[in-house]
């Protein structure tokens, strides 16, 4: 086993040296220059949007460049080994084929990781220097463990759906979220709330809600007031500040920006029990509109999620997981075809992964011929979803990228990568080199 690891590491080191000798760092410098120029010329409506756009530009550039590099670098190394007969000098040595395949993959990944680290560092530096106001605090969110419906008489009933709507001609219906394992030593916390609002009359596109919190069932409810720092909700439609609760607006499921789409409330330490539990109740006070909430997205507790740079690097790790899939598929294609075909295959896989949701919509639309539907359904087994984690939007929205997301991404994309690496190993074993 040690021998296998040493051989793999030797191939990885060789790959990194070859990549360095190809002067790909020149391309990286060009990319850095373009990114810096792009960041300087970005225009947005306000400073906050400018900052988000900068974050998205950096993340997007890293994503795109990593993708191209992954396909190009691995295609170049494998096809050169085959076509220029470098393999004749490699395989007479005691080099397992699996170590060769994994080593090449690992070497390209490490080279891209170095590039991602440099781009992230420079991008973060530029954002810090150009931001007109402070970099937003990155927050991680703590989700509720359960929720219940409370009727107008105060009776609670469990909910087994992920979405519920409060409607009807009487006030007083409410939703209650149970929170657990909250930190008890971080002082006051921030409660984030949002929901969907539906009204027939446009004049009722805002609705007053009462928000209360208590540490346990037996404790008394405390009414909360929308914070002044909240992006909306702290003023009534007539312009006066709310005295309690908040004025809710319609925020759809795709509005996930923590800084912009959620109302904020201060959750005092006294409202959290020593065991870390808290019960949040949102009551509908306006009969002219219906309110709709989701179990895990409508009520959140915002906790500190680390620094901006740390989260950018974790986001980079998720990008590396995606890139690993592309590296593996390009490596497989390079094992039996030339560089042109490999590039095309890699780009096809990339675009397929980007548009997986559209492919799924098309197969379910009923407008395609059967053979095409079956073909696309089969393709979905080998194409992962590159929009699964939405790291760029998450970072721009002020939400932290936690290690669980990174691990999940590596597990998800890694499964695909491993499959293609296994096939590549099998193909290489069968080839006459």
């Amino acid at each position, binding site marked *: 086993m040690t021998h296998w690891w040493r051989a793999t590491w030797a191939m990885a080191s060789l790959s990194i040296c070859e990549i360095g000798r190809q002067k790909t760092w020149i391309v990286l410098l060009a990319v850095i220059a373009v990114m810096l120029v792009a960041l300087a010329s*970005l225009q947005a*409506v306000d400073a906050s949007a*400018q900052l988000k*756009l900068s974050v998205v530009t950096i993340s997007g550039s890293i994503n*795109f460049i990593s993708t191209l590099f992954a396909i190009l670098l691995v295609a170049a190394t494998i096809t050169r080994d085959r076509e220029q007969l470098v393999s004749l000098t490699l395989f007479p040595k005691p080099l397992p084929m699996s170590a060769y395949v994994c080593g090449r993959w690992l070497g390209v990944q490490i080279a891209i990781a170095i590039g991602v680290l440099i781009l992230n560092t420079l991008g973060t530096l530029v954002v810090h220097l150009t931001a007109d106001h402070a970099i937003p605090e990155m927050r991680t969110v703590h989700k509720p463990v359960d929720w219940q419906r409370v009727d107008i008489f105060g009776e609670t009933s469990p909910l087994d759906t992920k979405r519920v709507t409060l409607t009807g001609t009487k006030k007083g219906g409410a939703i209650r979220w149970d929170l657990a394992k909250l930190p008890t030593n971080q002082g006051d916390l921030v409660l984030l709330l949002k929901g969907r609002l539906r009204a027939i009359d446009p004049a009722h596109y805002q609705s007053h809600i009462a928000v209360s919190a208590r540490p346990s069932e037996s404790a008394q409810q405390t009414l909360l007031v929308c914070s002044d720092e909240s992006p909306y909700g702290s003023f009534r439609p007539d312009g006066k500040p709310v005295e309690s609760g908040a004025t809710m607006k319609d925020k759809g499921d795709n509005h996930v920006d923590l800084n912009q789409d959620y109302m904020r409330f201060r959750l005092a330490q006294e409202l959290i029990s020593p065991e870390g539990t808290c019960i949040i109740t949102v009551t509908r006070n306006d009969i002219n509109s219906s309110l709709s909430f989701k179990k895990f997205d409508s009520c959140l507790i915002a906790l500190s999620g680390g620094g901006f740079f740390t989260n950018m690097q974790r986001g980079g790790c998720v990008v590396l997981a995606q890139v690993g899939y592309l590296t593996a598929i390009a490596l497989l294609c390079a094992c039996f075809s030339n560089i042109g075909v490999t590039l095309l295959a890699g780009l096809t896989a990339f*675009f397929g992964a*980007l548009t997986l949701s559209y492919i799924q919509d098309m197969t379910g639309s009923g407008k395609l011929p059967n053979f095409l539907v079956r073909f696309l359904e089969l393709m979905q087994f080998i194409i992962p979803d590159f929009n699964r984690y939405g790291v760029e939007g998450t970072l*721009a929205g002020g939400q932290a990228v936690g290690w669980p997301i990174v691990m999940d991404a590596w597990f998800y994309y890694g499964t695909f990568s491993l499959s293609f690496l296994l096939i590549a190993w099998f193909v290489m074993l069968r080839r006459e080199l």
Partner: protein
Amino acid sequence: MNLPPLKLAGMGLGLLILAQIWASFFVFDARPQAQRQEQESFFAELPAGEIAGTLMLGGFRGMAIDFLWLRAIQAKNDARYYESVALFDLISRVQPRFERVWEYMAWDMAYNIGHYVDQKDDKWSWYLAGLKANLRGVQVNPSSERLLRHLAWMFFHKGETYMERIESVTWQPIIEAAVKTYQSEIAMPMGKQLSSFQLAEYFYRLSVLVADREESRQPVFVRRMVALAIDRDANRVRNRGQHFLALQRYVEALQAWQDIIAWSQNPSGYHRGQLDIRLTDESYQRNEGGLRRKMSNLGKLLAKESKTGEAFAQAAMKRDIKTCHALMAQSDLWNEHIETATIQWLDE
């Protein structure tokens, strides 16, 4: 042919020289006629950087466009409007002649993003940004009736929401770069306090003009929108108490309807045959009759003497626009404002 290489090279060189002479003297003179006018103006409207960026991408331009579109639509679906707007702006630089990009960008900013922001000032900013994006598209694509039509629609449909702000803007500096090609044919509306309907009327007229010139497949209803825009503008000034001005605008609307019925009797340009003619006639019957009755009633109210009012009413009902103009030219016969002349209900 088994000629020595040197001879072959000499022959090739000679042919090249002959071709160059022919191109320099015979083809050169014919080039201005062969070159399409719109291509010349298209490149003239783009900054040098954008031309270089568009051309240098070469074969990767298609791939870049696909990637940008995917990102832009994903960003819009995720409500990251700051990103979607920036991406559509980038797409418009790579695909400046694709009308849908400009149309989509303008609509997205003015309608979708403007809806989601909360402050009224922010809503206006996004609406104005949408208009400017559409104008930029018109500037880059001067032969696009579609973009002109879309711009007119944005003024007609959404402009009333921001009427006061639109009237406070001096529009000439904003729109002159986009409409300078047409200045000789339809003059840009001048002056201050231009309403959204006046601007809609202007851009609808331009759209019809461009469609006729370029023989574009323009929907026939666009011609009717000119008259409807004037009618709406007249209602607007009427409700503000400028009754005599409203009467003048009603006469202009009536003239516009006469132009439409004249077109339907001798249709030119693109149309879907009898279906479009019939729809035009039906719309004319529905709208023009009501307009004439409005004019007659208002004319009778505003005239200082009843015989003037009756004469005007008769001329209006008979579609005698010349007489209407002649009567209105004598301003001493008319009141500017009458208490009872405001519209009391939505559809008179």
